[in-house]
């Protein structure tokens, strides 16, 4: 009786595993899409164009893999897309800071000129 019960449980788990993996792929893809959609495309193109293109490429690959039922590949590509999205986000911040540095330097030069004039 116990053996029969264990067999049923194992069979159920084996049947449920693919469905669970498909759900994970779907969730990962959705999170990556949401993260990438939140990026400002203009800032992204200016501050990290290569990384932004990489993000779009990996996201498309994740969608394609998910459509083909290649769940593991879809998860990996989604993870890669999400990571690049995060890189883009940080580079946008870095670019803004570097722009601030340039502006302050320009301001200082102007002040120095006024000081000596």
């Amino acid at each position: 009786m116990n053996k029969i019960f264990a067999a049923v449980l194992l069979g159920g788990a084996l049947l449920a595993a693919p469905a669970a993996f498909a759900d994970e792929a779907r969730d990962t893809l959705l999170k990556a899409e949401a993260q990438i959609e939140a990026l400002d495309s203009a800032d992204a193109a200016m501050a990290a164009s290569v990384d932004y293109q990489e993000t779009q490429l990996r996201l498309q690959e994740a969608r394609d893999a998910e459509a083909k039922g290649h769940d593991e590949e879809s998860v990996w590509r989604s993870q890669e897309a999400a990571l690049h999205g995060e890189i883009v986000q940080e580079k946008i911040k870095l670019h803004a800071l570097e722009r601030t540095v340039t502006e302050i330097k320009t301001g200082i030069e102007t002040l120095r000129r006024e000081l000596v004039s």
Partner: protein
Amino acid sequence: MAHYLKTTAAIAALTMALAGCASAPEPSSRLLTAEQSLMAARADPATVQMGRTSLEKAGVALADAREHYMDRDEDDYIHAIRMGEGYVALAKARGGQMKAEAEIAALNAERAEIVSETRKLEVARAEAATLDAQSETASAEARADQSDASAATSRALTAQAEAREKALREELADYELKQSALGMTMILQDLQYATNSAVLTAGAQGRLAPLANFLRKQPEARIQVVGHTDAQGDDAFNQDLSQRRAASVGAYLVTTGIDASRIEAIGKGESSPVASNDTVAGRTANRRVEVTILD
């Protein structure tokens, strides 16, 4: 048989060699580059401070990548190295942010210092301008004061002169007066002298009394006495006569207490007529003594 054994051994050795090569492939240049990049990131304090978690994940991912590469698990390798490279890039971006923020803080401090210097300079310039303006104002006021003083002095002198002239006219109302270049001049045409002499008659002395009074009241005043004759007679005689008559007036005034140093007596003879010598009236006008109160 021996040949077969040799061939088999050679094949076996080659197979083993190939198997050895297959089990330990050289790392790909991409993997080596990613690992070097990770090492460089770990050596950068800002990247370590801001991207510690990302560097740890990068280390794990690149170790996986190396393992999968050695195992020839291409799909796993590609995913792992992409993640490893990505985490290193993420850590570097965050380290870069920290450096930029530090630079911004330093630049803001520098800018604040320059602004402070600029304000100090502006204050100094404003103070200098104020001092200049005050100095200019003081100079202008001094000039105005000087001008006022000059004007006051001028007015005082004018008033003094007017008062003196008024006093002269009042004191010397008995005489015919005219203003000459030297000062106020009295023309005495009615002084009586003995004929052809310079001796004043008693009437003439009375005629000079107001002048003597005036000179006593005005101890600073000096006079010039000029004698004139008509054209009758010798020129030299007339010149001498006019000189003596002028001196006679001065001598009389000295007898009334006037200091001789205040009196200048000269004779002009017939050289300065005021009327024609062809008539009696003209000659009478020309015989005269003029006393000028010197300014």
